[in-house]
């Protein structure tokens, strides 16, 4: 019997395994729910700022039979906050979100702080990874990064940012270099702290928003620069991109991650046809996980497996009010298929 870590490693290496893995990375793809917090009596928003609590919640995800991984953090605001953005830590049902930007234009990026991995919530995340590394063995630890476009549009007004990609093209590239370098620092530190793999979620860098030309010029370029700068010895990388892929399948295939993950608007079958040689992750509807029932979740899970998903996962993470029995039905559903 493979351990979850061995199985995921083999999948990412492109080797044949007994069944798909079932994970939910964390970060933008949050996997902590209210019910889970009640089970272990560790709560957000405090857990966003405390390494011990963060690690305990991450452990609970695996221990309560939800997913076969640990992952931290549970939001996508750490990088922006360390660069100076104001963040509202949210509640036990709302995720943290940025409430105050730092700069008004891409050309002002020198005003941003460099990410300091020895303080603030960057340190909390790294400490949580160290705790997980110390206290666990057979379950993969996922470190999460907010993607370059999403980070860049978290410290300034996104509408201005998108426009300046065209209007101040050269300065926009300089800005993206700076942002990507911050992410590299944080990502390398996560691997050093003990993360087995890195998941990069870039929900604001969609093909629908940018169009194929800018998707390639900005999203693909800087995601790849980030991936290339991470240490070789890690298990692998996952890149999650939101929205329709139909305008940008060709460009997405240029992303040099071990696995690609899409949201549930993308049909897994269609993704499989367009990306024959890629390792794909996804994409059980986040909506169904919150508002459906276990039977529906299992049905969707089976359909993902059948359509050729290598790593079964909630499409965009979990809404915090998702019932635990629904959440547990993804993994249970995967196991049922392979028992028969």
């Amino acid at each position: 019997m493979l351990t979850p870590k061995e199985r995921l490693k083999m999948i990412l290496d492109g080797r044949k395994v007994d069944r798909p893995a079932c994970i939910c990375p964390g970060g933008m793809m949050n996997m902590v729910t209210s019910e889970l917090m009640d089970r272990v009596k560790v709560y957000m928003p405090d857990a966003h700022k405390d390494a011990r609590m963060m690690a305990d919640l991450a452990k609970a995800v695996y221990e309560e039979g939800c997913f076969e991984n640990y992952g931290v953090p549970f939001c996508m605001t750490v990088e922006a906050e360390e660069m100076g953005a104001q963040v509202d830590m949210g509640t036990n049902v709302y995720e943290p979100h940025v409430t105050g930007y730092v700069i008004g234009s891409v050309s002002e990026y020198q005003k941003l702080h460099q990410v300091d991995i020895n303080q603030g919530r960057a340190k909390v995340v790294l400490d949580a990874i160290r705790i997980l590394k110390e206290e666990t063995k057979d379950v993969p630890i996922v470190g999460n990064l907010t993607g370059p476009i999403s980070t860049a549009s978290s410290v300034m007004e996104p509408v201005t940012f998108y426009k300046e990609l065209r209007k101040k093209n050269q300065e926009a590239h300089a800005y993206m270099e700076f942002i990507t370098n911050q992410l590299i620092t944080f990502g390398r530190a996560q691997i050093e702290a003990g993360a087995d793999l890195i998941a990069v979620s870039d929900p604001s860098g969609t093909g629908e928003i940018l169009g194929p030309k800018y998707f390639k010029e900005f999203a693909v370029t800087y995601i790849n620069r980030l991936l290339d700068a991470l240490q070789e010895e890690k298990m692998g990388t996952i890149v999650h991109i939101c929205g329709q892929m139909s305008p940008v399948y060709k460009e997405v295939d240029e992303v040099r991650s071990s696995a690609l993950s899409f949201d549930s608007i993308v049909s897994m079958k269609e993704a499989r046809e367009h990306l024959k040689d890629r390792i794909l992750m996804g994409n059980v509807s986040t909506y169904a996980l919150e508002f459906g029932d276990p039977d529906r979740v299992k049905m969707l899970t089976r359909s993902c497996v059948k359509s050729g998903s290598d790593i079964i996962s909630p499409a965009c993470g979990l809404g915090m009010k998702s019932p635990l029995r629904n959440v547990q039905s993804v993994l249970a559903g995967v196991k049922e298929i392979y028992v028969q």
Partner: protein
Amino acid sequence: MSSKEELLQRLSDGVVEMEEDDVAEAAQEYLDAGYPAFDGIMEGLVDGMNRASQLYEEEEYFVTDVLLCSDAMYAGLDILRPYLPEVSNDDKVTGVIGVVEGDTHDIGKNLVKIMLETAGFNMIDLGRDVPLAKFVETAKEENADFVCLSTLMTTTMGGMETVIHLLEEAGIRDRVKVMIGGGPISQKYADKIGADGYSQNAVEAVKLAKKLLDIA
């Protein structure tokens, strides 16, 4: 000097081609030549924006393109609007729009607002992360005909249902149409919470608003 038709074409093309400065220049020339501001807006700027929406529907243009087209349109509007004959906002159909509390993703909402304004609606934009009661208060104060709610996150979509309940409590639900949209939203969800309609994108939102409010 350019003819009226030439200038209208230049306004329209300038919007489609995202040439903010040229649109502003053309708008000024158009005024200086003594042509009516109303035609300049409708047959020039709005025509250009409609062409841009068409390109968006055809996936020739993407969100960033439409945002830049709308900048060009607004640059022209700023110049032409002061010369419009007085029309009070009371005659216009008014909508309140915003992203519900807990969510700050507003690209989609901004697009919908631009398209609805282009179509002639008077839109009151509450921005993002909007306290739910604010939608109802504003709808009441402004005598709004419809409310547009947007969210990209499943965690915050429940707020839409709350707004509908609050409209009921305020006793104005029967005269305010509710339209919803955003990533996780679907027609099914609209039906479930009792919204009047769902639209998948900004172009559809205009069609939906017109349908709900019986506007040709």
